[in-house]
């Protein structure tokens, strides 16, 4: 094995409102069957990286439940495994994780006890498919200290990302976190590779100086001291940064390009098996341009929508442009438009839940309408 993996599964973000009230960002439902962390986990496993730490601060329960058995991603082997690290309360003076570097530092034993030469760091809130082996090869070829995967977002707004400036040789010359006035359209994907020993050294240095952030205290602060290179990635890549983006990512799965990439192209994305029965379409079902999942029972009309598992849609109900999460029950003659219904929402007969294209309506988990 050439590398170990670290997935930063931070936790909350206020821009996701009630969706992350009780749920880790890495456990966000995506594309009918998946949780967001499945993409990082599958990428690591598919790249031959089988020893992986998931570091999480908040709401780890949904995450622990999801990754509890690591066999779905083929991690649970004699020499490998999947580890979930949450802050340890040793005494009253112990802190939660104080930043992205600190959360790795607090688990530095994981790095020290390994013998793989490299570390791949990614996050659990990104939707993409990447072969990290190629990233590592590039890193070696550039003889880099740190390599950062980047993407050219072209016209896409980049104010909310880490904007990265590179010279002709792809060496990083500039990095600005969430700039008000971005100078480049290339953004850091928050996917890094570096040698395990360098990471240990940097983390110990940072800790002694009371610094805790991977981006500002390593990438930005050391940008002139270390050889930091950019690795160009031009595949599909999205980060769940707010509700609109979450909605948009799920809707992306209705396009053939995104479906083919994740569903039909080897290597595949794996997720926890749920063993739901096949999807049932009854005589009054009218489903078009939608994703449906195991255990769904459809009696009504579904258009341009994503239905997760075990959703019930009653007769005469019309669902358009919506995301319906696992275990939602929608009675008869309802209207659901431009909405996100979180898990186990119950909509009784004849009710309507309508948002607009600009303002997607969001119903919290277990809400009853």
């Amino acid at each position, binding site marked *: 094995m050439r590398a170990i993996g670290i997935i930063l599964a931070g936790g909350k973000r206020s821009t996701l409102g009630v969706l992350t009230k009780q749920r880790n960002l890495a456990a966000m439902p995506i*594309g*009918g*069957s998946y949780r967001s962390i499945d993409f990082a986990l599958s990428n690591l496993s598919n790249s031959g990286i089988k020893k992986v730490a998931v570091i999480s601060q908040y709401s780890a329960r949904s995450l622990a439940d999801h990754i509890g058995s690591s*066999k779905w991603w083929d991690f649970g082997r004699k020499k490998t495994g999947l580890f979930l690290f949450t802050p340890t309360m040793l005494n009253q003076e112990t802190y939660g994780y104080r930043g992205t570097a600190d959360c790795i530092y607090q688990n530095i034993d994981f790095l020290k006890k390994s013998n793989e030469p490299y570390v791949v760091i990614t996050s659990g809130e990104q939707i993409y498919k990447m072969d990290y082996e190629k990233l590592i090869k590039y890193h070696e070829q550039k003889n880099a200290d740190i390599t950062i995967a980047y993407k050219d977002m072209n016209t896409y707004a980049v104010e909310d990302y880490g904007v990265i400036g590179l010279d002709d040789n792809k060496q990083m010359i500039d990095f600005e976190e969430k700039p008000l006035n971005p100078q480049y359209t290339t953004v850091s994907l928050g996917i890094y590779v570096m040698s395990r020993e360098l990471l240990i050294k940097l983390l110990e240095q940072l800790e002694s100086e009371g610094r805790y952030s991977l981006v500002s205290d390593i990438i930005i602060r050391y940008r002139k001291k270390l050889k930091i290179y950019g690795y160009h990635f031009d595949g599909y890549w999205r980060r769940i940064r707010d509700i609109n983006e979450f909605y948009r990512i799920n809707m992306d*799965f*209705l396009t053939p390009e995104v*479906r083919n990439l994740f*569903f039909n192209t080897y290597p*595949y*994305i*794996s*997720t*926890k*098996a*749920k*063993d739901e*029965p*096949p*999807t*049932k*379409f*009854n*005589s*009054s*079902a*009218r*489903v*078009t*341009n*939608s*994703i*449906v*999942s*195991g*255990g769904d029972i459809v009696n009504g009309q*579904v258009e341009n929508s*994503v239905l*997760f598992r075990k959703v019930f849609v009653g007769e005469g109900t019309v669902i358009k442009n919506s995301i319906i999460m696992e275990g939602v029950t929608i009675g008869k003659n309802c209207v659901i438009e431009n909405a996100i219904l979180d898990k186990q929402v119950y909509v009784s007969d004849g009710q309507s839940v309508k948002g607009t294209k600009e303002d997607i309506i969001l119903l919290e988990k277990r809400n009853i309408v």
Partner: protein
Amino acid sequence: MNKKEMIAMLLAGGQGSRLGTLTKQIAKPAVMFGGKYRIIDFPLSNCINSGIDTVGVLTQYEPLLLTKHIGIGIPWDLDRRNGGVTVLPPFQKKGNKQGSWYSGTANAIYHNIRYIDDYNPEYILVLSGDHVYKMDYSEMLEEHKKNQADATIAVIEVPMDIAPQFGIMNADSEDRIVEFEEKPAHPKSNLASMGIYIFTWKVLREALLKDNTIHEDSDFGKHIIPEMINGEKNVDAYRFNDYCRGIGTIDAYWKANMELTETVPVFNLYDEFWKIYTNTEHQLPQYIGKEAIIEQSLLSEGCEVYGNVYHSVLGPKVIIEEGAVVRNSIVMGETIIRKGANLETCIVSEKCEIGENTSIGIGEAVPHVTKSHIYSTGISAIGDNTIIPDNVKIGKNCEVSGHTLQEHYEDGILESGHSLII
């Protein structure tokens, strides 16, 4: 020493010849059912749901797909350090270089006495991969213990007029079996054996050793059970009153699948506490295209539907292209139905490709010319890994298998009641 109260032995070596081309390269227990499942998933899931964690699966006929499907038993939670699932094929024995096949149901168990003895069980559950049902075997075991039985046989009441097709148990008022008749012309009762037995292992072990010296093809129905009844052993009937379908024929298989498409099917697959598990490669959702119409149907993981599907069952990763129409049919995993194809009342096995504008199931329902015992109810069957070219017409009660080309179809037609096997 190991000690398991009860272990299960699942007889999965049968061909199921009345399923015609559906079992061409697939043992009957591995034939897909209800979309995503294979028949063996039902007894295996019943085992784990009943608390039985040690299952020997006896394979013989075409075991490749079956063995791969079972693997180390992960989907059924049967990957255990002590016990779990073990595939038991026939093997060569010392002094018999040729080896010998399993020649009968009891003979197969006889050859695996060592496997059973390893677990030192009190009781042994013998199952077959012939039925689709949910049964709590632990309740049956309770009955067996309560009656202090030597053998308990699960029975189901069948209509009297079809009773001659089954092994019929004649029981006294306390459900103790006094007589067993295999396919009797004039049945005295309508209690049909489901091929599910619980034996007290000590008693069965003795019976197996004895019968094997008498019958080369030692069989439960023909030899062991009648011998136990005649030998004054306590053989009891366990009445099962829930859903159970034998799927031994093309017609029964088709009907049992079609039943699942009803709005409220008699067989409930949605039971959270009695799930049916299966080996799914990955857990894909399904995509339904802009022009698709799907009514009264079941779709499994990873299907993509752009055409029309009515009253049908689709297995995993089936693709139905634009303009294709599938009606009253079963389409198994990874099959592609090309643009404009038209399927009516047929069964298409795994990994097939049906060409553009090809029609299956048209014309008169004449019984098959040579295999009317298999194909007579109008259903056409396409074997696994079959390719059917564009623009051909295939009748009813037909059988097609292999990589077929345009020139194999005279005037582009395969008449009703004919086979095309390449």
